[in-house]
């Protein structure tokens, strides 16, 4: 798993690549917390190169969304979610908790 963060003036674009499971989820959580600990609560997550995500990754997404949406200070939006991951997110009822975009620029612009 690899996470990179690009800071824009009004939001962060975080790209996660590879596989997020119980082994790598703690690192994923840490990377997301780096943003929120810096007061960055508007986050677009580019998932186009994400190969796999288990419920351990969903848990990290949920915790971050809760933190970001508190006091209406921000939001996590998902961009370019691969079909298989989208299906699993749907099965878990997570697609209702996140706005999703087919285009990264659109996701960043929505924040």
């Amino acid at each position, binding site marked *: 798993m690899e996470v990179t963060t690009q800071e824009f003036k009004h939001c962060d674009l975080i790209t996660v690549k590879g596989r997020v*499971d119980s*082994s790598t989820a703690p690192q994923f959580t840490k990377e997301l917390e780096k943003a929120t600990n810096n007061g960055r609560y508007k986050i677009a997550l580019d998932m186009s190169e994400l190969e*796999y995500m288990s419920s351990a990754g969903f848990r990290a997404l949920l915790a971050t969304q809760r933190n970001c949406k508190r006091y209406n200070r921000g939001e996590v939006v998902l961009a370019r979610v691969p079909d298989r991951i989208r299906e699993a997110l749907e*099965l*878990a*009822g997570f697609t209702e*908790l996140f706005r999703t975009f087919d285009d990264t620029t659109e996701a960043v612009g929505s924040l």
Partner: protein
Amino acid sequence: MPSITYPARFEFLDEIRDMVADIARAGGFSEKTIYSLQLAADEAATNIIEHAYAGVKNASFSVTCEMQGDKIIIMMHDNGKSFDSSAVKEPNLKADLAKRQIGGLGVYLMRKLMDTVHYESSKAGNVLTMTKRRE
């Protein structure tokens, strides 16, 4: 029947997913279903490591995976604390963000992704058996 013993550590989830994918691919499953099988196996193994062996060092469990006709059978055997997944309540998928519970999601996904999920606990340990028919 290929059976492999893995240390009860998250670093081995990758290998468990690969093992399941190899057998499912040879058995003619579609890539889409292979992803589902990998996810179900991952969630099952995660539960064993996290719950059955909570706080236990140097534990291990075995994973058996095989095709029986057009059906794949994934079996996991551990000697940890019994964890009856059938007793896990279904998560409320309609709950709003603040009330959403993440516990039980792994078990829920396993049930949704597989045709059957069966758990048995005895003196000989805990055995989880999951099956899925080729589409």
